[in-house]
Structure formats: C-alpha cells, structure tokens
C-alpha cells in the first residue's frame, strides 16, 4: 500500500512551516512506515524549503528506520533545490555531519565563471 502526501507551501512556493511538517510526520509518515507502507511525498507546489522544514518532515523517520525508511520513501516533483536539500537531510540523518565541508577537501565549485 502507498500513502500519497501533497506538501503545501506559501504562495511563492516556499515551505518553511515546521509545525505543519511535524504534523504530517506524526499523523501520516511515521504511521505509514510503521506498517511497512510506502510513502510518496509530492512537492509539486513547493519550489524552495528550509532545511528545518525537511528535517521536521523526514528526520525522525530516517533516524528511526534508517535505510528501511529510505526504501519506503519517494520524493516526487522535487525542484533542484529540494533535491539537494533532501540529500543533505538524508545524509546527516543517517550518518551525522562530517568535520569538514566537501569544498575544503575537493575545492570543486559550481559557481559560474565571472
């Protein structure tokens, strides 16, 4: 079985309401994962979000169920910003923050040339 959740944002497509994210986590995401259901998070109306919002949404499920949560979660209609944000939250939720930023090691940058 699969649970579809439409994530809502402000008129400008910005999602930052942690309380709303928390409610979705507690009432829909966690109960679904507990019973082994898959969850699809649909970000069609979201263009940007804060890390706090995404953390409030999926941080606890990931820490509680680890890789199993990742197997059961699907992220739909993510903008490039949201994709990188989801990757960030998944990464630190499963493994914590490292000591040094990636750029300090590889010095790779994605800035446009000026």
């Amino acid at each position, binding site marked *: 079985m699969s649970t579809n959740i439409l994530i809502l944002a*402000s*008129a*400008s497509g*910005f999602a*930052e*309401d*942690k*309380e709303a994210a*928390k409610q979705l*986590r507690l009432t829909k995401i966690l109960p679904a994962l507990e019973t082994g259901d898959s969850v*699809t998070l649909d970000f069609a109306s979201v*263009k*940007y979000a*804060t*890390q*706090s919002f995404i*953390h*409030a949404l999926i*941080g*606890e499920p990931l*820490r509680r169920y680890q*890789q199993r949560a*990742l*197997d059961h*979660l*699907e*992220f*739909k*209609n*993510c903008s*490039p*910003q949201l*994709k*990188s*944000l*989801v*990757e*960030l*939250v*998944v*990464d*630190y*939720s*499963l*493994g*914590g*923050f*490292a*000591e*040094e*930023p*990636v*750029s*300090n090691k590889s*010095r790779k*940058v*994605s*800035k*446009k040339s*000026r």
Partner: protein
Amino acid sequence: MCWMQRRNCWMAASSYVMYLKRLQSCLSIHDVKSIMAHLVVPNSATLHLIRRFLDQRELFVDAPGPVVLEFHPQWAHMEPVALAAIAAWGAWWRSQGKTIEVRNLSNHTRYAARMHLFEHLGVNYNPEQVEHEEAGRFLPIRQISAREGVGPVIGDISALLHLDDDPESLAAVQYCVSELLRNVLEHSGSPNGAFVCAHRYTTGAPHRVSIAVADCGQGIATHLGGVHPEALASDSVALGLAMRPGVTGARPGPYGTADNAGAGLFITRCIAKGTGGYFALASGHAGFRQRRSKKANDEIRLFVDPYDDPRHDKFEFAEGWHGTVVGLEIRTEKIADYDGFFQWIFKQIPSRRKRGKIKFS
C-alpha cells in the same frame, strides 16, 4: 566699602554661585547618566561598525527613572541590525515597566520612524513622511511572538523588498528570516519574541539585502549550556558552537532532535558567506563577525568552525547583550553568479555521503 566695591563683590559672589550651580548640574547629569539604562546610537550603526554599537556599558543598567535612547545629534546612518536590536531592547525595558525617553529627534531619525522603530518603543513620534514607493524597499520592524506570526512576514518579503523578479535572492532572504525567527521562538525564551526588519539596498554598491533579528531572551550560552556544558565556558565558545552544524540546545541526540537538527544558523551563515556578505552574531559578552569578501575565492570556502574563517572578527563586550542579535547581508548581485545558489550551498555542507539511493520521481 564703596558701592563699586560692593558691586564687584556681589558679581564675584554671583559668578561663584553660578559656577557652583553649573558644576552641580554637570555632576548631576553625570550621576544620572552613569546609573540609568542608556543606549547611544552612533552616527553609523551598521554591520561594519557593529562592535561600537553593541559595546555599551549602560544598556541594561537597572535604575530608577526612564530609559534613554540617544541618537547622535547630527547624523544617524542605521542598518537593520541596529533597528532590530533597539526595538528588542526597548520592548524589554517596557516589559520591565520602564518608559523610553528619546533624545536628539530630528530629520536624521526619520528613517527610524519609517521603519516603525518608535511604535515599538511606545514613543509618539511621527514626522511627516514623504513616501517614495520605488525606493521603499524595506521590511519595517515587526515583532513576532508566536509561530503563527512567521508566515505572514515571509509572505510580505517579496512585495516589500521588491524581489519578485529575483527568485533566488527572494528564497535566500525568506530562508534566513524563517530560520532566524524560528530560532528565537523555539530557543530564546524571549518574553517579547523576536524583532525583525530588512532593507534592500539597490542604489549604491554592493547591492544587497540586509536582514536582522534580535531578542532579549536567555542568550545562546544559557540555552546551549543545558545540553552542551562546554557552552557555559564563555559566550564566545557558545557562539562558536551555535554556528556549527549539528549543535542544538533543544535536546540531546546524535544528530539533533525530531524537530531540530541544529543547522539553521550554520546554513544562514553559509548563505551570507556564499554571497560575500557580512554575518554577525552577538550574545552575552561575545560577538562574532564574518566580514564581506574581498575576492571571489573568499566566498567559495565555507568553514564548519566559524573561528577557522580567516575573515572573521571576535569581539568581547564589557557589559554585553542580554539576548541575541543576528545581522547578515545577502549580496543579491552575487547570487546571479551561481548555477543554483542553494544547491551549491547544500552541497558544501559536510555530511555522510555513502547511503542507499534516494527515490526521486
């Protein structure tokens, strides 16, 4: 004694009395000044000169009588960081039952009035304003006391700062305002909530949005100290911890709590840094400032430990700020240099890289 001598004698005596009165007056002014709460707004109250603005000894002196806000007599160039801090300071004193007495109101304080500062101080001062719609790129001071208040502020940013045509800058400003306001509401214990304001500068270089959020709550060291005892060593240590990712005072846990990861302030600092803007944080007796970048390479390298950044300043305040003040700049012209500013920021943040595939569809 002839009348001439009597007159000279009287004049000498009256001069002496006048001298004594003047001396007494000077002494009494000095006495009052030294025991009353007093905030002096220097001629330039900006992120660049944040140390001078916050390093004042009489901000929180508890004494009888009014609390005095004194503007510079000739000039007052104020940025949002000063306005938000003054509003928080004034509201805190008002909640202690004090009234705010403002000195040196004149033409140069019109901008403060336009930013609604005096409304938050309970001071009736409404100079005639000439509204310049095109130049009015600012978010006046707002007091946010509950979570429900955050959304409306975020919603107003686009129109008030005229950022409709610059979605990445708009998102960066909204991001920072949201994270900073929620930090105050969730962690500061401030009875008056948070004070926020912003201004978009488009006429002179650098083009930027300056944002500030201030409170007079428990301060960072006290908040973090409950979970991270090392934060109690000094305010400077506490500031350093607060700006690292994964440090939260909410509850103990390996990577934050269900609702807090402790990355908000870190990412906010990275956003300012990534565009080469100032980032300043002050709480208690300590202050931190990340300077503007001088060259593009300054922006590329983000530091987990803020004190590793070569372009930072550490301040120690004799009296300090009872609560927390955050001010930062987002240089809007620099955001255009990025192929997806947020993706770049998030990819610089240190986190584990090996994990299963994330299902995007």
